[in-house]
């Protein structure tokens, strides 16, 4: 298994390089530059600034320079946040985004799997319809509606929770985590329900029933593991997405995470910052997909020998 993991990671390097090259071309192809503003720089100043950030080099030269820096772990200076390097910005924001993302994912898995299992066991009852209905609402109402609404209700009107991250205290975690988790809960509940219904009608479950096992034991010892398999494939990219932050949640709650850097970086044409986050995201997706594949082996004995 170790050898397999090792080969997979080696195989990911060309993928990553390709991602970097495409992202590099795309950010530079976007119209406008990082130093454009309504207050246009006089030509002499424009020249000085371009030179200071090596933007006067040819594009291939810039790309090679960027790759050279990357090889040394240098993601370059941010064009927008001029007192900081990209590595510092991401390094400062990532732990927070990951912390929130991990909490949200734990909450989502706990709530989503429970709801999904209950709905599956009570298939086509009122309870099932309720769970499915709520899940549908969770998926269709976007975070940018839910999150500000939460702030209005819990921070402005009821004054129970702080409206922003900067206000301090552990209670500031609550709303962002719930807002991040809501759509995930919905997805996970739906996936779990479908997969659980599938598993519960399979032969080995029927055998277990024939042996007189209770539904609770069947679910706990036999059905839950195989029912998690489709969920696992979904979790790889989902976790990568949630760990790198959500721009909406970060903006609404004033959280200094990676998500807002990504969007602001793109809008400000902060080439290096956007590239840095893209690389981070791509690396995370690759790693998590690998983790998912390895977990498959753990959960499904049939996969182990392949």
């Amino acid at each position, binding site marked *: 298994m170790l050898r397999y993991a090792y080969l997979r990671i080696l195989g990911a390097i060309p993928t990553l390089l390709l991602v970097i090259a495409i992202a590099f071309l795309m950010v530079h192809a976007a119209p406008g530059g990082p130093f454009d503003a309504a207050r246009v720089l006089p030509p002499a100043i424009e020249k000085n600034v371009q030179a200071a950030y090596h933007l006067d080099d040819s594009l291939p030269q810039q790309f090679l320079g960027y790759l050279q820096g990357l090889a040394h772990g240098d993601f370059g200076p941010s064009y927008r946040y001029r007192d900081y390097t990209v590595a510092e910005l991401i390094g400062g924001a990532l732990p927070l985004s990951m912390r929130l993302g991990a909490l949200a994912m734990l909450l989502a898995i706990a709530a989503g799997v429970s709801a999904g299992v209950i709905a599956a066991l009570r298939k086509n009852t009122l309870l099932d319809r309720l769970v499915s209905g709520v899940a549908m609402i969770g998926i269709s109402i976007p975070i940018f509606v839910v999150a500000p609404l939460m702030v209005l209700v819990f921070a402005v009107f009821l004054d129970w929770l702080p409206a*922003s991250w900067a206000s301090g205290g552990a209670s500031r975690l609550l709303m962002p985590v719930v807002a991040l988790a809501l759509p995930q809960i919905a997805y996970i509940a739906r996936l779990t329900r479908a997969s659980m219904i599938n598993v519960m009608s399979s032969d080995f479950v029927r055998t277990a029933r024939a042996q007189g096992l209770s539904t609770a034991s069947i679910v706990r010892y036999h059905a839950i593991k195989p029912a998690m398999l489709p969920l696992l494939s979904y979790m790889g990219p989902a976790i990568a997405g949630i760990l790198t932050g959500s721009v909406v949640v970060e903006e609404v709650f004033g959280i200094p995470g990676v998500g807002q850097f990504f969007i602001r970086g793109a809008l400000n044409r902060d080439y290096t910052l956007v590239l840095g986050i893209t690389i981070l995201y791509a690396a995370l997706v690759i790693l998590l997909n690998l983790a998912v594949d390895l977990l498959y082996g753990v959960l499904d004995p049939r996969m182990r020998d392949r």
Partner: protein
Amino acid sequence: MSRLHALLLALILALTACGDGARQVADDVSLLHRGTGEEPESLDVHKSRSTEAGHVQRDLGEGLVGYTPDGELRAAAAERWTISADGTEYVFFLRPEARWSTGEPVTADDFVYSLRRLVNPETAAFYVQSVGEILNANEIIGGEMEVESLGAEAVDSHQLKISLRRAVPYFISLMSHPSTFPVHRGSVEKFGDAHARPGNLVSNGAYQLVEWAVGSHIEIRRNEYYWDNANTAIDRVFHYVTPEPIVELNRYRAGELHVTRTIPPESFKQMKAERPDEVRVSPALGVYYYGFNMTNPAFGDNPKLREALSMAIDRDFLVDLVGRGEAPAYSWVPYGTANYDPQTYSWARLSKDDRERKARQLYEEAGYGSRRTFRPEIRYNTSETHRQIAVAVQSMWRSVLGVEARLINEEFQVLLQNIQQRESIDIFRLNWDGDYNDAHTFLSTLESDNPSNMTGYQSAEFDSLMQRAGAQIDPDLRKAFLEEAENRMLRDHPLIPMYFYVNKHMVSSRVTGWGDNVLNYHYSQHLSFAADE
């Protein structure tokens, strides 16, 4: 399973553990919480140009002069100054008691060092317009002369002489701009580009930098060595990054902010009704306009068409639409600009019907009408307000003239590029905010060779009037030339001014010392908390 449970529990506890202590928000009278808008791009006064950076920099640093809460020029790092008879030589007498946050005295050498760093091409400073009129500044920026040749010298430790290439009446107000603040030589030489970061930044203003959590806030605290420290009331100030106005307002309503950067249009009426005493609105030095691409013959060669399009717009309606006290604009230089009388279009006072009739007549004289419809594109950057205004303008042009305009929204950077390339652009939305309180900051952007001349307006007559204004030492003569220049430009209609901006803030009723001023400068050192009623 129980081991897994324990592991999960430990993980959750670790993740929820609060790294930093909870901060008291509302009631501590030594703490001020302000919304700052977008994140400052840098706290190095030579690496920034945004108004947001300026707000924080004015708390940290201090220029030769500053402003009172009511917008009157005041002595700051310089306690007085003299101006030569020809207006080209300034001698600033620095306060002997002025100190850096390290306790070292602020000297004339510090200013000379900083001004030289500002114009040094290696610094690649973004905003050097503030010192463009200092002798040899532009040549140094262009790499043609040595930095030592800059017209700024230390006569002695506390006497700074600045020589200009010509008399510039508003020069003194430029010396309040953060780009002219002194930087601390010792830390710049030690830390280089990292000198403006927490722990490194040495400042000479009322506050010093404590923490900068990028994406969240900048914390500053009282500079004990500041010469006027006795009059600073608030010990610590938090400048929060609040790019989304509605999010900022919610934080204010939840009691987490004392002062907001702005008030979003969709909530303005509600705030005005619910908290009338906390809504602070005052005229600003900014104008919202539509520009014509003057290099496109359809516009450039057809002044009557441009005038007709301008006249057909009901500015009163637009002002109602935005609805925060903005003033309809019939000129380019905003009301309230110092040493200036507002100029207006000749038809500004006409009734709506007369104005529209005249507009239709011009439109027909321009060669359009029922048989030939004019179909321009209006480009604006993505924003709800800009969209609403574009839709209103589109419908006014349709109903008054029969013009069929197409609306295109673009990301701001894309719009800017399209404007500058002047290829696929007809009419564009932009705004211009004054950098200093003088008509020159508005009018100069229409000079033929000004890089911020977005329309591509070229008028030899306008340029020569601006030049003659620049050569005047007599303020009255200068004012007359500037006014004449604006009138010339208004008659040419390279752009359509729509309304003049207002500064709008929510200010907690507990905050005192707040003054409304056109520059929108609100130094934290002037603010304090009212004693509880």
